[in-house]
């Protein structure tokens, strides 16, 4: 675990420093810029899906789906970040109580 934490730390720091140090023309390559824009979108979407609908090696629809539905509604209503996150936790906890 510690090794993985160090690898993540070094990797993330190197990316930050590289951004501040690389020549500006790197951005001029349209493929690089598009891929860099798509990476967070793809990873976040995949993380959401796995976080909400997987239970070990199988797929499941449970209280987390209700929490995500709340989050969508809250974001549509332009609720602040903390309301979205805490509200989702509360919804999941309530659904599990029922």
């Amino acid at each position, binding site marked *: 675990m510690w090794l993985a*934490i160090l690898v*993540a730390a070094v990797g993330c720091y190197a990316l*930050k420093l590289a951004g*501040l140090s690389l020549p500006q023309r790197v*951005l001029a390559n349209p493929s690089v810029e*598009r891929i860099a824009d*798509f990476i967070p979108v*793809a990873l*976040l979407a995949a993380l959401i899906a796995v976080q909400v609908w997987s239970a070990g090696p199988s797929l499941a629809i449970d209280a987390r789906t209700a929490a995500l539905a709340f989050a969508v509604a809250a974001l549509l209503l332009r609720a602040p970040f903390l309301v979205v*996150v805490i509200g989702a936790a509360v919804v999941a906890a309530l659904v599990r109580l029922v």
Partner: protein
Amino acid sequence: MSLPSLPGAERSAIIRDAIAVGVATGAYGISFGAVAVSSGLSILQACALSLLVFTGASQFAFIGVIAAGGAPMSGAMTAILLGTRNALYGLRLAPLLQWPGVRRVAAAQILIDESTAMSANRDSVSAARLGFLSTGLAVFVLWNAATLAGALAGTAIGDPRTYGLDAAVGAAFLALLWPSLAVRRNQVVAVLAAAVALGLVPFTAAGVPVLAAGGIALLAGLLRRPVEER
């Protein structure tokens, strides 16, 4: 330094905003600390992530993979892939901050979403630097303090599922993703990536589905090119 100094009112406005942003992300750091220990990390490991990795989405991705039962190294790889976004921020900020050598090496650690947002829109080098430093430092201090508090609380409350903390992570990721979804092609990439990840869940080790979904970004970035050039 021979930069013109900022008027007092502008200085205090920038610092006030920085502290507000720091408090908001600090509150979010509490949930990171709590979810980290409930995912199986020690308090020390949760704090090390906040101190050393210091970029929220990557940290949540790391513990998300661990919580799903994935290998720590796939967690690290997912965290690094998500961290590529900071390199992009750096490229955009470099001409604005104009920091040489050693200062740049030190500033790099606090290059994150918030410090970028609070410096990218300034109209002078002094204002950009102040926005960057004050926001970066405010978030750094409060995020780390909050992680420790959250980790301590997390060990105290037991099973995080009782409080729905496991569901909060998905909501946090969705809130981070939300602004990008205003663009049509991002919606397509997001749906495809989610579908690929879910499709792989039953057949691969935990952690692999999310990394594989990164391939969608690669494909989408490369495939769009010919269409645009025509």
